[in-house]
């Protein structure tokens, strides 16, 4: 069992598999030749939730998702998808948008969506009908009979996403769904994900763009170096770092450094540092007494981006030390 350094859940172990846990994995391991892509990742995704799998490039996110979906088998470890130990048995209740988008270029958009639905057990005619409705609601109604090769990359990506939800799956797995989309389409995709979640679907998506995860995810896991390094809510992830303070002295800012915490950084105008464990009051008193005054003071929670950088950075340092 790989232990999480930053584990925000109440228990280290995974919850028992039941109807409330559509995705469950324990100690997944995958090697490609001599390289270890995934090393003991465990996940538990609650039903009806938007769950993010975050990690830097090459962290093992895609490999983890492919193992969960049964596209590839792990070298060791176990998994359950919608209650099935063989993920394939649940394939008709799952929608999947792979990282590398794939559509037949000669197919018309409506047919492509219906085809993906038919693969998951949806009737062709019903698939075509739903494809029209979905494309209308996605603003692509004018392109239902356009061939994929005649579409822009963003449009084709949306078509593929619609193909992955046309059969109204219980679980939607999206691998880097925002990559390659312009801000307007990203916004559109976010609302589509929220809509699917509101319908009752569980969403599992991977990304390395923190802003999407911060806006969408209720829970998330951070994977780095093939291992899970964090599991919890966005707030819990942000809680990994102390509050950040930004202090502007009234005069002689450079001399204030002697009173500030050792990690304080001066950016030419203000000082930035982690708020000490006991709070900022004592520090402020000493600054005022020393005559530096307080021209400005801001205290804020760190963002997910900072937490992610810290967690991944620590993970890399730990791995390097372990390698030594």
């Amino acid at each position, binding site marked *: 069992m790989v232990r999480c350094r930053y584990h925000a859940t109440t228990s280290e172990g995974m919850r028992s598999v039941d109807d409330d846990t559509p995705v469950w994995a324990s100690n997944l391991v995958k090697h490609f030749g001599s390289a270890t892509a995934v090393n003991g990742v465990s996940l538990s995704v609650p039903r009806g939730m938007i769950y993010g799998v975050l990690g830097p490039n090459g962290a093992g996110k895609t490999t983890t998702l492919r193992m969960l979906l049964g*596209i590839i088998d792990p070298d060791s470890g176990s998994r359950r998808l919608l209650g099935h130990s063989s993920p394939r048995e649940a394939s008709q209740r799952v929608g999947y948008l*792979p990282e590398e988008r*794939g559509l037949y270029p000669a197919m018309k958009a409506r047919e492509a969506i219906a*085809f993906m639905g038919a*693969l*998951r*057990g949806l009737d062709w005619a019903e698939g075509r009908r739903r494809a029209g409705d979905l494309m209308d609601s996605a603003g692509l109604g004018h392109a239902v009979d356009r061939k994929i090769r005649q579409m822009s990359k963003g449009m084709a990506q949306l078509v593929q996403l619609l193909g992955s939800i046309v059969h109204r799956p219980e679980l939607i797995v999206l691998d880097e769904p925002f990559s390659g989309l312009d801000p307007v389409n990203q916004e559109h995709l976010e609302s589509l994900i929220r809509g699917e979640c509101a319908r009752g679907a569980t969403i599992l998506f991977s990304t390395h763009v923190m802003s999407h995860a911060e806006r969408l995810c209720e829970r998330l896991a951070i994977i780095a170096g093939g291992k899970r390094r964090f599991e919890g809510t966005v707030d819990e992830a942000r809680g990994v770092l102390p509050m950040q303070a930004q202090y502007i002295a009234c005069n002689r800012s450079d001399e204030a450094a002697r009173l500030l915490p050792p990690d304080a950084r001066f950016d030419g105008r203000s000082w930035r540092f982690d708020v000490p464990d006991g709070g900022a009051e004592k520090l402020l008193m000493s600054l005022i007494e020393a005559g530096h005054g307080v021209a400005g003071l801001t205290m804020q929670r760190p963002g997910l981006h900072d937490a992610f950088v810290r967690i991944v950075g620590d993970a890399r340092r730990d791995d390097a030390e372990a390698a030594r």
Partner: protein
Amino acid sequence: MSGFFAQARVIARRDFKAVVATPTFLLFLLAPLFMIVMAVLGGTGASQAVSSAQDKVRIAAIASPDDAPLLQSTDADLRRLYPAEVRPPRLDVIPSHGKDDAQVAKALLAAANPDYAAVLHGPLNAPTILRESGSGAAYLSELAEQTLRNKQAGLAPGARLSRPVAEESDKASAGNAQARQVTGYGAVFAIFFLTLLLAGQAVGMLAEEKSNKVIEILAAAAPLESVFVGKLLGMFGVALLFVSFWIVLGGVGLAVLTGASGLPELHAAIGAPVFLLLCVAYFAMAFMLLGAIFLGVGAQASTMREIQMMSLPITIFQVAMFGLASKAAGQPGSATARFAEIFPFSSPFAMAARAANDAALWPHVAALLWQLLWVAITIWISAGLFRRGVLKSGPGLLSFLRRRKA
């Protein structure tokens, strides 16, 4: 299981439509027309060249006025026994000039036009044959012999000693052993030719999915075995359309040009209708078996060059299976025939030949089930190799073996 076949059907349907609904399919469908046109043009040219050469080359017999009509009628009788392709050169009967016949014969042989290959002179009981080349001399010798026999028997030119009456035997409908073997060989060749022409296309069938990444969608939604079955069925649908088109076109063409008699007669021990049905079933099995190999091997390739490189060994394997089945067709009931009937990849060809030579039906039921089993095994192995080799699924072979050892 129904889900397995439903997904295979979805993939087959997509593939079938993707192939058929393109302009290039028309080119594919009509490709044999170009072959036929070229063959007809080539055949006509070759036949004109042969017939022109045959007209120029002749043989001659210098005969007395008494022997000349007899020689001519015997020549007509003998000539009928030869197939058109190997018929002897035209015979010119030249009146005898008595003592000068030898000189005349030499002069004829030396002449350039007509070009005589051999010249006979002298009495029929002791003829002399001057020859230049070819088989004309042997024919002249046989002609002199036969003419002498007819003369000694007192036969007038054109008269015959006997009048044979042909009666049909019970086995006439099924043909004799030779006719059945010819039918069997024809079936082996037809199935091989169609399989060679059509199943080979399976080698590049997963290339599109691999290049445009659709394979990820397919692999996530359906078992790979189902994907492979769907791809094979889609391609088989295309093959059936192709074969049906040409059978109908060929049948109608032959019937129009030559009447019903132009259609080839089938001599099959099992009966013509059952034989035809079995041939269709064995074509399906041969297509699926060899197509599965082509598909499985082609799926491992990552570039078109690799696909082309991999096609050659499979084609050689296919030709080897044809060779084995052809031998089996020529030796029905032999150990070679039994082996070819049992070996899965030659079985469809060899069993088609067996249908022409043996009336029993149950071996065909058993063979079709046996071949179906091997289609499933081949697809299972191909999908497994793709899963491990291309998708890198499951532990690698080395780590698997290491774990087993541990």
